[in-house]
């Protein structure tokens, strides 16, 4: 039971969605874009957010695209994690998506929602971070296309993600993902990493380790520095983490570090055949 009331809109075009946002916020109505809505419903139920209006993006055709052509993989923001997991267009993303929540939840959670939500994990971001993917973003100034890097996608006021575009070639590369939870598989990650081997170079992105998901060049350089032993490379990577390791009800920071080391070791073993 959501105690608050809000207006609900389901526009059929990008332009209408953008315009609605402008109009509503112009009328001092706090407005949010709505994809799968699972996080919005839960947070509104718990009084953590109280929007005056929501704009459901699911009727916008561009947001529902899921296709692969000769050049690119295009995924609309309101495509569900299940649709992605069940399609073979982007194998690494398929695997990562399948590790999030459980199937019935994935039927509702959208890729756009996972990438822009307030939950600190946003695991679906990892494959995009690794593949120089681009986000098509709509806003008052029209649409813009930005490369997804670092900590993810930064949206300005009134913007929403329309699509995610990934170069087709990445679907072919070797890839691994690894997720450790506290105990039940159905839970938030203690450590979730996704990795891809591009031109013999390991790329790796992390969720659950720090308070936000990230990919960092220096970490990859350290891991790819074959002049060092695997142990040293892993330690170097951990020393380069961009923020303190999380310490919360899911796991202590010490245990997270242990799990992270193991995950990185497995990664090196897998890509390099060392043990």
């Amino acid at each position, binding site marked *: 039971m959501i105690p608050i009331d809000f207006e609900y809109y389901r526009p059929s075009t990008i332009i209408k969605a953008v315009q609605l946002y402008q109009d509503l916020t112009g009328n001092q109505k706090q407005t949010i874009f709505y994809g799968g809505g699972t996080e919005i419903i839960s947070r509104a139920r718990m009084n953590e957010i109280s929007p005056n209006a929501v704009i459901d993006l699911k009727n916008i055709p561009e947001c529902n695209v899921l296709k692969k052509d000769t050049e690119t993989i295009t995924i609309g923001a309101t495509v569900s994690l299940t649709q992605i997991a069940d399609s073979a267009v982007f194998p690494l993303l398929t695997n990562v998506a399948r590790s999030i929540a459980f199937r019935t939840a994935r039927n509702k959670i959208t890729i756009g929602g996972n990438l822009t939500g307030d939950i600190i994990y946003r695991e679906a971001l990892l494959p995009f971070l690794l593949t120089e993917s681009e986000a098509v973003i709509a806003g008052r100034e029209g649409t813009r296309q930005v490369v997804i890097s670092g900590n993810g996608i930064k949206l300005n006021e009134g913007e929403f993600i329309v699509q995610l575009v990934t170069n087709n070639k990445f679907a072919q590369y070797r890839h691994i993902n690894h997720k450790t939870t506290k105990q039940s598989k159905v839970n938030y990650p203690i450590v979730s990493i996704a990795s891809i081997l591009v031109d013999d170079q390991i790329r790796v992105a992390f969720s659950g380790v720090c308070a936000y998901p990230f990919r960092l060049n220096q970490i990859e350089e350290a891991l790819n520095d074959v002049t060092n032993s695997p142990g040293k490379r892993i330690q170097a990577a951990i020393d380069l983490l961009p923020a303190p390791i999380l310490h919360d009800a899911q796991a202590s920071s010490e*245990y997270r570090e242990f799990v992270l080391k193991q995950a990185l070791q497995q990664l090196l073993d897998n890509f390099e055949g060392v043990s």
Partner: protein
Amino acid sequence: MKTESYTVIGKSVPRVDMPDKAFGRTKYTNDVTIPGVLHAKLHTSTRAHAVIKSINLAKAWEVPGVRAILTGDAFPFPVGPMLADRPPLAVNKVRYCGEPIAVVVADNIHQAKKAATLIDVEYEDLPVVNSPAEAMKSNAQLIHENLSNYKVQVKGVYPTPNTNIANLTKIRKGNMQTGWEASDITIESRVSFTPADHAALETRCARVEILSNGRVMVYSSTQGPFYVRKLLSEFFHIDAGMISVQTPLVGGAFGGKGTVQLEFIAYLASRAVGGKMVKIENSREEDLIMSPVHIGLDASVKLGATKDGKLKAAEIKFLFDSGAYSDTGAGISKAAASDCTGPYAIENVHCDSYCVYTNHPYATSFRGFGHPELTFAVEKAMDKLAARLQVDPFELRLLNAIGPGDTTPTQVNLNASNIGDVSSCLTKIRNLIGWNPNKNVQTTRDGKIRTKGISCFWKTSSTPPNATAGAVLTFNTDGSINLNCAAVELGQGTKTVLGQILAEKLKMDTKDIHVTLEVNTQYDPHQWKTVASSTTMIAGRAVLAAAEDAIKQLKNVGSTVLKSSPEDLDIAKGRIFLKDSPEYGVKITDVAVGYKYPNGNTVGGLVVGNGSYNVRHLTPLDPETGFGKPGPQWGVGAQAVEVEYNPKDYTYKIVKAATVLDAGKVINPQAAIGQMRGGMYLGLSWATRESFTFDDKGIVLNPQLRTYDILRASETPEYLVDFVETPLVDGPYGARGMGEYGVIGMAGALANSLSAACAADLNQLPLTPELIWKLVEGKGDVQ
């Protein structure tokens, strides 16, 4: 199993409640929409221990539709089942995170909720007592300053004023000095775990209406409709006859719905709005921490044994973490004391079992009532002793298995009937799990370690000495029978089993028995509660008595019709007939509603069968020695768990879980197997992942099913179940209790199996990979 000539007992009669459940037709308490019902919503504490400086209701009153807002002063008196220590709404201070402070009553649920969130409470924090060990310190912060003024509701609860001790039960059996002197080896073991939850899928819900004549109508998802009536009557001074409690089917309970909480609040709320019907339903978050939880424990066990493994002495200390209020925690600490040794014969026993207040959510009964908890402590100690003695843990248990001729910790003499056969259960579990002391630790090709662990368990019911049940039988014109009794159907199959008992007695087909699934205290005879694996016994005996009564009446009328003496008659398959000439008889249909002669004259009237049963000869425990009889019989069994442990990352998979229970007599095999599997699952889910995580301020960090881990379908082991049948002489067809037992030994067997795999003393729960990592790596105490 022996083959008797039963036609219904021992058959897997399909549970009568299944079809409606499969089609979504079953109505639980919250599935009824009533026009005009008002909705109540709570404002709960965000602090674990704080003085309430002020409560500002102004903004809440501004919400449209708000009809009443109640705070602690609406009823500033403590309530509680054993020790009255808990105000229905917090008074002056809060003692746990999640404690109800105020209740809003409004036309619509969203209005009530909106208003509840707008209540502004100003707190002044008090030091938080975050574990029972902290609570026991001599300088500990007191959680109940007025403990000495609280009214003891049930004989045998002993609070210690000016401490955080809500109850202490002492066991003093034999002579400890003799015991230690006779011991060649002693071991000590300590285990602990924080509170967890029942997490029944149906959250608790209650509706209360006060009619214009003062009659209080209660609708509640409870395991004890008569218990709700009893407590409402006692605390609000309402004549019991003026209270009617109705309970439809209940969506899981596991002990968590055996106490009274929302009903108090709903009654006060209804009273505040002129008696209109008020509904209160828990959100999942409230159900997890505002309502009572599964108790925590900190236990120390010291065992002494001769060098050939015979147990000589046990010194045991339980600190049960009852949280902010004692509820049934006092009873749990008593029950655990009564059975503190597990099913082992020990002549010298010393046990101090404390129910301790902390600033955690308060605890109530959980399936097994203290036994899954004590068994984890005892079974860990038994494996430690076996390791020290270098004997097979199985043989150690077999050597010390308790049996006829021995006495329990409270010095009850055991005989061939009042205790099941521990040795037979052990022998059977050995075969079921494939126990082989030389092969119990095996390394797989991929470097994983497969191990097995075992545990034994026992439990007596710990019912009140006057626990009772009744049954009423009426006959329909088609000769079928209606069975009414106040046993609550929780999914355990009690209504089906009672129907089977009746069908067997009357030699009828179960399709001709109509068991009323819902309970209504106004129509059904009194029953204590549906808890403690006691229903088959107490309600089963009541049904047998009612059947006897009906048979007597049928034979009386039949004897007139058949011109014979009642003694010469028998009843079967819907007929009353002469024993020596079965072809000469009369249909029950023609007798049960009065026999009509061809000329229209009628004799006999309606047959109404009544029966009741009381547990007998139970006594409170002596406050100094614990001497006394806590239950009519001890159900026993053995369990085993096989795990595959990965020493690289400290993860593991549960491969097999096995139970052998001495059921006395299995009345419905498929239902019994389901109870055992479900019990093992609940025990394993708890032992592997379920617990509340507290921060240093006593705040629960995981009050949601998203973060309160529960074992999922993809994570289940292979379940193995078998039974031993040592009849309980006065049990219905020899049956003992069953419902709780599958849970009891799981934590112990799992911890023993995993401890063998990782060669560390895994003495805490839940057994997460992080905990194992810390204990194996010697990273110190996790909690």
